[in-house]
């Protein structure tokens, strides 16, 4: 910390060690704050200087891995992506993500979320298994086809949408916004032929349970819109039920190009080299 870090704020952190505690409780720490400091920096300060037993998860520190998701003042954030100054407060209440089981302190188990993620078969399903196992070329896809689902590929699996979702809070069988968004992502992919397998899964404890609160989309730190994916899945399911939905044409394999263009000639040097 430099001398300019004169401001000190209170980190009120939820602590819970299942081996020692009967119930979660809060502990306060005074953290010196400097300009540009993130909530994760504050937690690291606490761990390195005040209480080394504080448990929290982090990895990339650049909002890519999704490991450091926590609740800050009751709203889910990636702690590495959230500056303390954003809150304009002398006190931050920090808790583990809601709607997920707590392992210790701020660490939640993402296992329930990933179980649901796996249940929607998050991979390309095709009938040309040989081509998938030993690919000879790429599958054909137009830029417009890619744009249909591109934003949903940005999901980092941080669990923030699940923590924000009011339905996930009350309905333990609900697949959750993360799994639903990925269900749409793979179903919409022109290279995928697994719609018949995924839509019944999405219909069972998925899209029809959503209240369209939109909290998942509001909270997502990567700008993914799971609420939109759920509505688009609903539209697809209704279209299929009414017989309006066109069957998707599976993207073919693009044969390797046999022709190559001539290389563009280098322009003449404008600066003459000294002899």
């Amino acid at each position, binding site marked *: 910390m430099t001398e300019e870090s004169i401001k000190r704020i209170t980190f009120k952190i939820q602590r819970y060690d299942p081996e020692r505690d009967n119930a979660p409780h809060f502990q306060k720490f005074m953290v010196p704050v400097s300009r540009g400091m993130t909530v994760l920096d504050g937690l690291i300060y606490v761990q390195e200087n005040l209480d080394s037993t504080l448990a929290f998860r982090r990895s990339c520190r650049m909002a890519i891995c999704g490991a450091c998701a926590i609740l800050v003042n009751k709203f889910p954030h990636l702690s590495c992506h959230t500056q303390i100054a954003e809150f304009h407060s002398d006190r931050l209440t920090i808790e583990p993500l809601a709607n997920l089981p707590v392992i210790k302190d701020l660490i939640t188990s993402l296992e329930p979320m990933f179980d649901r993620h796996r249940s929607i078969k998050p991979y390309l399903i095709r009938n040309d298994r040989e081509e998938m196992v030993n690919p000879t070329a790429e599958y054909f896809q137009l830029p417009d086809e890619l744009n249909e689902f591109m934003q949903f590929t940005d999901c980092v699996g941080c669990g923030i949408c699940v923590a924000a979702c009011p*339905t996930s809070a*009350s*309905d333990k069988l*609900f697949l959750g916004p993360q799994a639903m968004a990925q269900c749409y992502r793979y179903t919409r992919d022109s290279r995928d032929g697994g719609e018949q397998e995924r839509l019944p899964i999405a*219909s069972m404890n998925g899209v029809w*349970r959503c209240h369209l609160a939109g909290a998942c989309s509001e909270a997502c730190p990567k700008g993914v819109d799971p609420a939109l994916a759920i509505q688009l899945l609903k539209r697809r*399911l209704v279209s*299929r*039920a009414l017989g309006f939905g066109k069957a998707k044409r599976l993207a073919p394999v693009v044969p390797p190009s046999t022709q190559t263009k001539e290389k563009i000639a280098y322009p003449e040097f404008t600066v003459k080299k000294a002899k």
Partner: protein
Amino acid sequence: MRNAYSWLLQLISGVLIAVLLGIHMVLQHLDAILGFFGVDTVDLTGWSSMIDRASQGTFVALYIALLAVGLYHGVYGLRNIILETTPSARVKNIITWSFIILGIGVFAWGTYVPVSLLGS
């Protein structure tokens, strides 16, 4: 696909409730609006007016349709709320069938009066 039909019916019933309830309100409770348009309204909520309407097929059809869409919309919504707090797939099935039976029972009960009045 059953869930998709149920949800679509929920949307359609919502729209129909707005239309049918609108007709009901204008005809029976907002007679000032009818008066504004020059329609002669005499004691719309009186006993004799009610019996008179109950003998007309159009009104009976309107009542039954309003009962059907209102009942479906309400029962489906209530079922969804209760399902959300039910952590078991088996219990969810029991709740769904309970609501189907309840809905059919209330519909039959609700239609008995206008249909019997129509025949009288």
